[in-house]
């Protein structure tokens, strides 16, 4: 078991290395000068000397490979560089913006599990009925409608029908939990829309498969109640494969946050990613993506291990 974990961790190293290198060179493909971009704002532009000075200090005059190895050395010591935009280290910026998005993610997961699993079960149990058809229509829509459009429509509806206006200041959970949840509830739902629909569909098809299995018939033959048969015998078998979606769901969450946070004016990781890309803060882009990717790899490993642990057929083999 530990040999397996070590092997997986070792395999991650070349992967992250390839990603980092690719990002490094990718972002420097673009013509245009970082120093110029930094100093040229709407208000002022810089003199040639100021630009040259900045280039020297940023090490931009060195050969590209020298820059690369310098960057590599920094990363290996945990230094992901500084963001010119925010004038702080990438790591500290990340830390400050992470909280909101983490909360959104947690809320999103809770909300989607709360309704996606039950809907999937009901859909399977009432197969063919109008209830099933309605749920299937909803999941089809959930997967098809673009989440940013849903967000906009939701906001429009709130403004038009409830005279609501977007909150200006973000309220932390510890300061005022109720306000906090009120702010984050709708964005969390919208971010999780597509994922919830996917979970519902998967639960439905897995339940349909599981219900026709022999062991469910055995459970019925023992006189167990329908609730016990579904919840204790069918559901664990049907929902385990949903765990295989975990990586995809995390990616969808990040993608969702990038678009939705801005619409709801939430200064989280998603907005950070979007800003750093639209405003071409290469150090920040590189650092965030690399850290995100590393986290994703660990997440995948954890969910794989979790799956193996939860399935007795694998756990005890």
């Amino acid at each position, binding site marked *: 078991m530990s040999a397996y974990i070590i092997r997986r961790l070792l395999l991650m190293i070349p992967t992250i290395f390839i990603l980092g290198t690719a990002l490094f060179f990718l972002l420097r493909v673009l013509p245009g000068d970082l120093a110029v971009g930094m100093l040229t704002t709407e208000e002022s532009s810089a003199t040639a000397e100021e630009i040259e000075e900045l280039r020297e200090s940023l090490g931009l005059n060195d050969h590209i490979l020298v820059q690369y190895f310098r960057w590599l050395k920094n990363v290996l010591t945990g230094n992901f560089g500084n963001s010119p935009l925010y004038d702080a280290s990438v790591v500290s910026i990340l830390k400050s913006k992470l909280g909101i998005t983490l909360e959104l993610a947690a809320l999103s997961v809770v909300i989607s599990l709360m309704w996606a699993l039950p809907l999937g079960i009901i859909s399977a149990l009432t197969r063919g009925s109008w209830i099933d058809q309605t749920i299937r229509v909803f999941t089809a829509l959930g997967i098809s409608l673009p989440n940013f459009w849903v967000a906009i429509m939701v906001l429009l509806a709130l403004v038009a029908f409830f005279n609501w206006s977007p909150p200006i200041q973000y309220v932390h959970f510890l300061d005022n939990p109720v306000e906090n949840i009120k702010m984050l509830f709708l964005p969390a739902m919208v971010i999780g829309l597509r994922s919830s629909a996917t979970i519902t569909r998967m639960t439905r098809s897995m339940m349909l498969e599981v219900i026709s299995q022999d062991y469910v018939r055995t*459970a*019925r033959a*023992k006189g*167990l109640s329908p609730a016990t048969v579904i919840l204790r015998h069918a559901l664990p078998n049907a929902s385990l494969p949903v765990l295989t979606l975990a990586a995809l769901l995390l990616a969808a969450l990040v993608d969702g946050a990038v678009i939705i946070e801005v619409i709801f004016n939430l200064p989280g990781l998603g907005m950070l990613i979007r800003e750093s890309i639209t405003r071409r803060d290469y150090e920040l882009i590189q650092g965030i993506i690399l850290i995100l990717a590393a986290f994703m790899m660990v997440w995948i490993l954890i969910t794989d291990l979790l799956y193996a642990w939860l*399935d*007795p057929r694998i756990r*005890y083999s």
Partner: protein
Amino acid sequence: MTEILQIHNLRTYFRGEDTVVKAVDGISYGIEEGETLAIVGESGCGKSVSALSILGLIPSPPGWIESGQIIFDGHDLLTLSNSEIRKVRGAKIGMVFQEPMSSLNPVLSVERQMTEGIRLHLGLTKQQARTRAVEMLETVQIPDADSQLKRHPHMFSGGMRQRLMIAMALSCGPQLIIADEPTTALDVTVQAQILDLMKQLCQENNVALMIITHNLGVVARYADRINIMYAGKIIEQGTAREIYRSPKHPYTLGLLGSIPRLDGRQSDKLQPIEGQPPDLGDLPSGCHFNPRCQYAIEKCTIEYPPFIDLDGSHRAACWISDELRTGAAH
């Protein structure tokens, strides 16, 4: 001897693509307290369906019970509500299924699967149920029963799993065990062990045993009485002795002729039954067996034969069973 289960004219149908499949089309029989009854027939003859009908386990689309009565414990099981039939399942009638590899839940421990029925029907506490589960495992001769409880089904072999199923079925002290092809999926060497075990346990506890099988040879040692089924109907009934000694339906003759016998001569050829079992949605007119029957006369293609009483409890649904009795048809 009292009959604990009586089935009257059971009809269980299924909806096919454009037809109605009459899986069970009017069968009647009974089981006496503590006896072993075998229901024998080819695949598709309706024997499993008739067993599942008793406990209401027919998948409901596409199947339904068209008519009939199943009298058990003073009630017609077919008229019971869902919550009432659940009190019978597992508690008064236990079932053992064919595929031990897939009939146990892979993600639940043996202890959980053994004790949930016990706690539900006997109202025992967790600890008491556990003790009883260990007892049951010991009676089905699973070694080291106490530590086996924590394990999961995939760790057991097919034969062991079937023993678990038997233990589960017996654990609440039922009056009847229905075993649907209990040994078909097992190695030949294990088959006899399992059947011996079931017979022994049922005799010890005065539990009636219904064995459903396609293999007439297998039940020779165990059955008190036998029902032979073909295409949804029972075509011959009698004690084991009567059936094996003097079979009176051509189908039964065919079945017996196709089993190799230890006491037969080496030069005896096995006689398979010609043809294929009929499509249950498209049955031949008259006797269902007539296209494959070497003794068929014209009447067989027109009218379905009623039961003809022979000696003792022996009956056969055949127009010429009288001739067979006197040996005139040979």
